[in-house]
């Protein structure tokens, strides 16, 4: 996804994605930032990526790796690491669940990145949209924490929940909550 497309999205839009997606969660964020801070290189696919907060169940079939179940994980765990990820790698979209911090929303506005909410737990449906893996990195981190690459086809539904214009669906809901 290019920056112009990202900036055209508005909170509340429903989208389905086609094209490259990489997975990454806690350990991947820590290693990516540690590596780049040390001046070393990370896999080029991280740059300008659509980053999916997901630790899939993968199974080997022939010489291919197929996702069996691949729903989103809780994005808030990556709150502290994400502004720097967006700044350094120009992440264009983050797919996850549960939303992210105001600091992340600010970085999204500045560098051009959106937050797309996948439906938590809908792992079988979302795995279908990913198709077979097109490669992986950092497998020593374990199946859940490794980077898995996919070429998505009709992957969704995803709800634009934080956009580049200051829109934030989670904030809107939070303001209206009755206790």
């Amino acid at each position, binding site marked *: 996804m290019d920056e112009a497309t990202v900036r055209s999205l508005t909170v509340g839009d429903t989208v389905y994605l086609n094209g490259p997606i990489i997975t990454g969660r806690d350990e991947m964020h820590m290693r990516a930032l540690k590596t780049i801070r040390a001046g070393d290189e990370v896999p080029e696919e991280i740059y300008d990526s659509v980053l999916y907060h997901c630790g899939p169940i993968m199974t080997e079939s022939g010489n291919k790796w197929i996702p069996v179940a691949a729903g989103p994980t809780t994005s808030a765990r990556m709150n502290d690491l994400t502004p720097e990820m967006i700044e350094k790698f120009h992440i264009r979209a983050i797919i996850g669940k549960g*939303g992210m911090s105001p600091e992340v929303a600010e970085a999204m506005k500045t560098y051009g990145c959106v937050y797309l909410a996948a439906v938590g737990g809908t792992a079988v449906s979302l795995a279908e949209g990913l198709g077979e893996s097109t490669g992986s990195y950092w497998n020593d981190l374990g199946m859940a924490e490794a980077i898995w690459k996919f070429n998505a086809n009709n992957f969704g539904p995803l709800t634009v929940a934080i956009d580049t214009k200051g829109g934030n*669906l989670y904030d809107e809901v939070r303001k209206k909550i009755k206790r």
Partner: protein
Amino acid sequence: MIKLPEPVEDVVFNLLRASNTILPKDVGWALEAAAAWESNPTAYSQLGAIMDNVRKSELLSRPMCQDTGIPIFYVRGRFDSSVAEDIKKGLIRATKEIPLRPNTVDPISREPYENNLGEGMPIIHFTPTDDNFTEITVMPKGAGSENMTKLVMLNPSEGREGIVKAVTDAVLDAEGKPCPPGVIGIGIGGTADKSILLAKEALLMPTGDENPDPVLNELEEEIFIKLNSSGLGPMGLGGATTVLGVRAKKAACHTASLPVAVNIGCWATRRASARIYDHEVKYSQEGFF
């Protein structure tokens, strides 16, 4: 001909497969009822995607969620020490064959373990009884919901009102993180550790059944209405469905204490039980009646 029951290891494998691939009927019905109520389009689409996924996972026998969690085992009835080894063997096989995601790591080095084992794993709670069966229950518990667990040690003077507030705050502060709409497990009383055990055990009670304790039943209903009037909605994106059920258990506590624990189950509140008798095995995902 006398039918011999399958080996315990196989029973454990069957339980792990059923719990991960088939949503308990009571939870499924609660989802359908919720979808019929929803007028918020975002909420309706979230529930639709969930129900669609539930159908696919059962049909394809695939885990409904990639977070197959930490399996928590409950063993009650008559048993000996071999049951722990059988559970371990069943879990190893299930991790490879279903497959389950290998989720366990060292808490400090974060080095992954294989087959969902590792130090202190698997977690098994034992309750010996004089029944003529061994009952094994498994609850696969994902981290998204487990991470939202709350324990509060209230002052006794805060009373019932304090309990309602502690529970509603725990659920509403968690927002979309534990994958609402789920089941809220509440443990009241006991000690700090006991209240958490009760809250988790409450998630094994079928959603929608009346609580045998009328005081807890009223409390469950009050919290259910309060949470579903909050507007948090499925995945925290707004709507009328924040919880599918509220279940509570209690135990006596110290005169100076009022422990309240909240353990949240996501929409995929998964469980399966088996009763192993001499000549047969009975399975259920909604408890035994």
